């Protein structure tokens, strides 16, 4: 990925310090309260997409009584159009390990795991080498926090945190009922912090720069920067670290091919923003959040095909245990086909929109709940493409 051009911000991929694990070693000397205070002050929110305040998650887990706790790094990067964690893990793995070790200290965990997407198996040799270095370093400073890697088996659903724990435990990757949340019952039903790869790196950067400097970037609701995976109809696809809270029209100005019809923000489970709304759309937690995926579509693309593709994806990647997701995805896919073929009247789309709303309200996990995001945003904004 040597040709990747970085813009604006250079936090994540920035230079390592000359001394390996210096920031980690420095941070470990601080008190847990100080670390949590800095994190709270920084306003850091999870980078996987959902945006839960990181400091809160760590604090809850730290407060949960229990001797045995775990830190899990969610590297099951499976959202269509996202490929930034791969880049982070291959270029700055030490920052990820450091972030995890800091978390381990704060919550009192003695073991960390990286759950690596099955398709990223090729990263393993390099990653293991780096990990060896980390584990040696940890031993040298008597830090009781070894990290190991667990490889997934290729299911999108295992990116959902509770399905991920099930998978780690050797079970079928099916989401659990919530509550309880991972902060009280995660891996092996023990209190667990599970964060995205990028979140751990951000933690380290906050420790290095201090929360004040981190806060200079972004907006009140979306502090800091974000690594974006830009793909689709763009002359410059790739990975870019950009400030959060930017308006979408400026993003399209920079990355579009001049004919951008829509941008799918946040992958298949995210939202489709049509051209007329570019101006009013902010990329961030106050607007449209994203785990990093930005897919641009120009006017040569059929939004029906785009949606159909997403629905087929969900239909297959649903774990199948809960009714709204398993059957709902099939109905949505088959439903838009029927409308397109005029087997059903166009009004049937309204029925399907209501169904997708029900899926959002009743599905057991984030997968089923987020199908409605792309479905309703594409159907509502490109209705004529669905019908004709």
């Amino acid at each position, binding site marked *: 990925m040597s040709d990747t051009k970085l813009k604006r911000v250079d936090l994540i991929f920035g230079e390592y310090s000359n001394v390996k694990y210096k920031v980690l070693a420095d941070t470990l000397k601080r008190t847990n309260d100080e670390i949590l205070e800095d994190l709270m002050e920084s306003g850091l929110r999870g980078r996987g997409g959902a945006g839960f305040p990181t400091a809160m998650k760590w604090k809850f887990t730290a407060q949960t009584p229990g001797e045995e706790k775990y830190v899990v790094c969610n590297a099951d990067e499976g959202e269509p159009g996202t490929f930034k964690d791969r880049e982070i893990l291959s270029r700055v793995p030490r920052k990820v390990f450091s972030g995890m070790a800091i978390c381990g200290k704060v919550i009192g965990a003695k073991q960390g795991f990286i759950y690596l997407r099955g398709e990223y198996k090729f990263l393993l040799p390099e990653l293991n080498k780096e990990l060896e270095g980390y584990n040696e370093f940890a031993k040298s400073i008597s830090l009781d926090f070894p990290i190991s890697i667990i490889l997934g088996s290729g*299911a999108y*659903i295992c990116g959902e945190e509770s399905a991920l724990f099930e998978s780690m435990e050797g079970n*079928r990757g*099916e989401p659990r*009922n919530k*509550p309880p949340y991972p902060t009280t019952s995660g891996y092996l*039903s023990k209190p667990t912090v599970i964060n995205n790869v990028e979140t751990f790196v951000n933690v380290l950067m906050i420790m290095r720069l201090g929360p004040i400097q981190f806060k200079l970037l972004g907006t009140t609701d979306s502090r800091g920067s974000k690594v974006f995976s830009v793909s689709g109809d763009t002359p410059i696809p790739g990975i870019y670290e950009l400030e959060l809270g930017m308006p979408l029209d400026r993003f399209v100005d920079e990355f579009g091919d001049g004919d951008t019809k829509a941008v799918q923000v946040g992958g298949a489970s995210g939202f489709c923003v049509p051209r007329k709304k570019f101006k009013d759309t902010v990329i961030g937690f106050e607007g449209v959040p994203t785990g990093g995926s930005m897919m641009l579509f120009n006017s040569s693309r059929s939004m029906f095909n785009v949606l159909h593709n997403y629905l087929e994806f*969900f*239909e*297959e*990647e*649903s*774990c*199948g*245990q*809960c*009714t*709204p997701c*398993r*059957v*709902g*995805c*099939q*109905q949505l896919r*088959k*439903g838009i086909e*029927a409308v397109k073929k005029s087997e*059903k009247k166009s009004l049937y789309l309204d*029925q399907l929109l*209501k*169904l997708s709303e*029900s899926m*959002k*309200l*009743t*599905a*057991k996990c984030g997968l089923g*709940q987020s199908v409605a995001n792309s479905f309703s945003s594409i159907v509502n904004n490109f209705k004529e493409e669905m019908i004709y």
Partner: protein
Amino acid sequence: MKNTKKETVKKINLTIDGIEVGVDEGTTILDAARQLNIHIPTLCYHEDLCVAGNCRVCIVEQEKVKSLPASCATPAAEGMVIHTNSMKVRLARKHIVELLLSEHNADCTKCYKNGICELQGLASQMLTGDHMFLDLVPDHKYTIDMFNTAIIKDDSRCIRCQRCVRTCEELQGVSALGVAYRGNHMKISTFFEHPLFEVVCTNCGQCVNRCPTGALIERNYIDQVWDAIYDPTKHVVVQTAPAVRIALGEALGMPPGKIVTGKMVTALKRLGFSAVLDTDFTADLTIIEEGNELLTRLKKALLDKDPTVSLPMATSCSPGWIKFIEHTFPEFLGNLSTCKSPQQMFGALVKTYYCQKRKLDPKNVVSVSIMPCTAKKFEANRPEMRSSGYKDVDFVLTTRELGIMIKQAGLDFEALPEDKFDSLMGSSTGAAVIFGTTGGVMEAAIRTVYEVVTGREIPFEGLNITPVRGTEGEVREASLKIEKVKPEWSFLEGVELKCVVANGLAHAKKVMQDVKDGKANYHFIEIMACPGGCLGGGGQPIPTNKEIRTKRKEAIYEEDMGMPIRKSHENPEVQLIYKEFLGHPLGHKSHELLHTHYTPRKRY
């Protein structure tokens, strides 16, 4: 994982449909609503199983929360305001039922569960007449497994609630059923999708009892039995198991726990069976044979110091247990009592002893049994179960199937007068009745064995040997010191007879593992494959849950207490059959007709 060390249970206050309620911490919204008599519909939820929360039918609206939580899986929290029937809930719930119907082969009039299907019930409640969504059934290739003699699995009727999967794993520790594939292809399947008869399935039917739809049903033999009844050349003999008489009423609209023995006999006679006899008779016979077998084994072990004798000896009445041990602990088959189950003893005697006495040609006799069990169907079809020269038991019907036949015949069951079993293989004792509950075989055996060895009645008030009465969900160990024995049993003087009673195969597995690991030192093991014993059998009326099983159990002990004779060896017809036909226990004829052998099977 419940925290059992909680000192005081905290009270949680919440509001459901405008009514305030205080519940114990940990109570789900569903249970809290039930305390208020608010009925939230469910599908995947079952009282006996862990919460799955996957059908989503039981969703409710929680104020200040965007999504609709599943009430079965969400614990009540302080200050929650819940609406169980709001606009949002009604639409979403209707959507969910419609979605289930759209992938369900809703050919209801052709379904065995027509009228008692839980999905059908919900559909009628929701008025799903307008078929909101597209039919997905043609898009799928569904498997229908009809190869099994006991259970039929029809995937086209499956709603993936996973009750069967949880049953097989949690209650039975068998895991013959599991989830395969994902998304639209997700299905309930077996190891490598083999048919049920090729996998570790024990045919216990606990899944059948819990399946809300017609996806898992017993193979029914109702029409074959009617044909036999209407065939003037056939003499159709029916036997009824102990646990049927305390549960049949439920299948015919009566509350659980009613003893309906007399009405059942009347109904069977009115259905047209030539003779209505009692499996309890061979239950008593089993005690004589099995008791003597145990004493023989003890003698070989204690007196002759024979190292080849297999102890502990385990009961062999439960066919689900037999298939389980054949698969899971084949090295312990020698520890099983060689006695056939009462059903099969009965079948073998019908076509020999009974025919002789009644001057019938066994080829014209059809032997039918009414069982609380689906595994009995498999058992009757075992190749070794033909020692009379004919198929010992021709057709096995479950309690549910008998209920259907009674309805078909238009009988008003509750209004029927009471009648008595026909004689010759129709008399029984209280010891036989308790075969229907966990611990019953053990208790019946001890009542007899103790008396044989000491010449005295077992020293328990009212013959109730409560220490061996099994409890659901636990393995019960007991020991009995044998003292002041008769001279011929002197080797048993002072011996402490160690017994263990377990019900549910998950517990059986634990007992056998302990035996295997040398952790346990028993003489006699009683295992019943189903939770609570036969009264909770896979062939019993639906629903079956802990509350209902408890009521059935009380009825069984009530029936035992009400019997004039309560010890198997005092059954006059049993004494008669030894005098007239069998000779003596474990004799040549017994071996030929009443004992069997077992087949080692593989796990995969």
